[in-house]
């Protein structure tokens, strides 16, 4: 079953009369439990695509089915609910609340969810353990290293147990060692916990942790191929 299915979706930005095509007739499908990477040079439309798939932005043409339902039939409130319960986001800039603790940051999506308050602490603690930051749980976000911040963001994306995790250049702001730790966790989310993952990156090295790579150029899909020698963290350590 496909969790994500787009058919000919386009995105046109209008700025002072000039139209820019960010996406042109993109058709793609992501199966439940799949790990895909979207690659392309800057300006290729990969971020726009992620934003549309993550319901953070709207497309101008075409149709988008999420979990088998056309998203144009949803109200703003329902879309907020889907983002909250079925999607998890990891951004390049981490986007943590700087003055809140690790636990508070991870709990943030729960406040907007229907999950009963009694479960919040347990769920948040489990998510923090999943990313291996239990020793940092009461630290403020500002006291963490970049890699740790991104792991907090991953825990936050996990806490509502989403179907899909969208990661937008999650290693872009990290040194290679921290980046590897982060991509390791993201891969485990897919292989061990069964989450569907949509990863955006411009590094082939990072993209090869996925099962399939979709390449974008000028808003169009130019390639869609499975990864032949899929990387795992174990490989990285062997080097």
């Amino acid at each position, binding site marked *: 079953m496909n969790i994500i299915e787009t058919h000919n979706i386009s995105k046109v930005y209008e700025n002072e009369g000039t139209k820019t095509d960010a996406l042109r007739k993109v058709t793609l499908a992501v199966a439940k439990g799949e790990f895909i990477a979207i690659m392309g040079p800057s300006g290729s439309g990969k971020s726009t695509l992620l934003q549309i798939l*993550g319901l*953070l932005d709207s497309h101008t043409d075409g149709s988008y089915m999420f979990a088998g339902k056309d998203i144009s039939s949803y109200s703003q*409130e329902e879309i907020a609910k889907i983002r*909250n319960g079925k999607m998890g*986001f990891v951004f390049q800039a981490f*986007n943590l609340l700087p*003055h809140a603790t690790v636990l508070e940051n991870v709990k*943030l999506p729960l*406040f*907007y969810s229907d999950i009963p308050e009694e479960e919040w602490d347990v769920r948040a603690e489990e998510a923090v353990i999943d990313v291996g930051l239990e020793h940092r749980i009461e630290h403020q976000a500002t006291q963490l290293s970049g890699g740790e911040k991104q792991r907090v963001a991953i825990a936050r994306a996990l806490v509502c147990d989403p179907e899909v995790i969208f990661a937008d250049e999650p290693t872009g702001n990290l040194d290679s060692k921290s980046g590897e730790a982060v991509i390791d966790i993201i891969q485990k989310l897919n292989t061990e916990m069964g989450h569907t993952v949509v990863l955006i990156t411009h590094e082939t090295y990072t993209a090869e942790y996925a099962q399939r790579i979709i390449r974008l150029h000028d808003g169009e899909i130019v390639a869609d191929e499975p990864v032949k020698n899929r990387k795992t963290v174990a490989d990285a350590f062997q080097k």
Partner: protein
Amino acid sequence: MKLKYSTETAITGLATHKSRSALTILGVVIGITSIILVMSLGAGAQNLILDQVKGLGATTIIVLPGKISFGPSLASQTLNDSLKERDLALLETKENVPHARSVMPMVVGAGNAVYGDSVYQTTVFGSGAQVPDIFAITPDRGQFFTDDDVLSQSLVVVIGSKVKDHLFDGDDPIGQKIRIKNNTFRVIGVLPEQGASSEFDDSVFMPYTTAQQYILGTKFYNRLVVVVDSQDNLDSTVQDIKIALRNSHNITDPSEDDFSVTTQADIAKTLSTVTTALTAFLAAVAAISLVVGGIGIMNIMLVSVTERTREIGLRKALGATDGDILTQFLLEAVMLTATGGAIGITLGAVLSYVISIVLASVLKIDWQFVFPWSAAVLGIVVASLVGLVFGIYPARQAAKKSPMEALRYE
């Protein structure tokens, strides 16, 4: 989103910028403080007036000459000669005014009291011997004059406390002679200090007959004070007095009355209307600062919304609805102003308490501190409303932000 969490988030948001939050609510604090202060002092003034009027007796009726119907001894009433000896006789007759317990004429003048080298300008009250009874003041030294003194136009005076202080400087005034308008009077009594709200401290009392003969040279009265036997008969006695005086003055149309009859209750009502109106006016002026404070809140909230664009975007990406964001920012504004309101109420009450103590001790008047509970409740409600009204625009700006715009914002 749960309200409890919204509240916690709002508190965290405000606590992150403590000094900014404090400065922001200053306008609301000042506004609410002024309103509480004005209303508390207004209520205190009203109580003072009512107490004093009650002290004068709820059974007292005052007949004034001339048409003007309120306010004590205006110039036209002092000079109006419509109340004469025959009117006094008329009101003293049981058939005309059956419930009058006593009728006392009063005249008022001014004169310099002289003792040795000391001169003091005083108000001269000519009255009957009933003053201690009607005005509830008894001399603390010597005594008040008697009906016999009134009948015989005795040259005796009872002096107020300030007159005593200025003329006698510690000497015992009883039995001493003072001169007023070239006549010599013997001091037979000294009245206790009444405080700043009373004109009696600066006054001398003498029999009205004496005052008419030696000080004023007139035959009319400036007022007639009628004491009724019971409060129940107050209204009927007012009517009796009017009818008797109209008959005697040949007046058929009540609008042509050349006298006016007021009770202490009327005076109390007039004065309390005036203080209420004044209080409301001052409170309205103070309320303007609330509007200014509200605009300050709006301004800071807008800055805060812009500053926290990323946070708003993140919250939306994680599932916050427009309503959640709106609630969060609105709650921040309301909590700011409600806190300002609470501080303002406390500050206003403390200031008002201090002022009431100062007034009571410096002016020697019986000023009671009144905490205006209704104003306090109103203060909190108004302050919260200010937050709601001026917070709604910034909160909507926040809620309108698209998650992507907000996340992109640097």
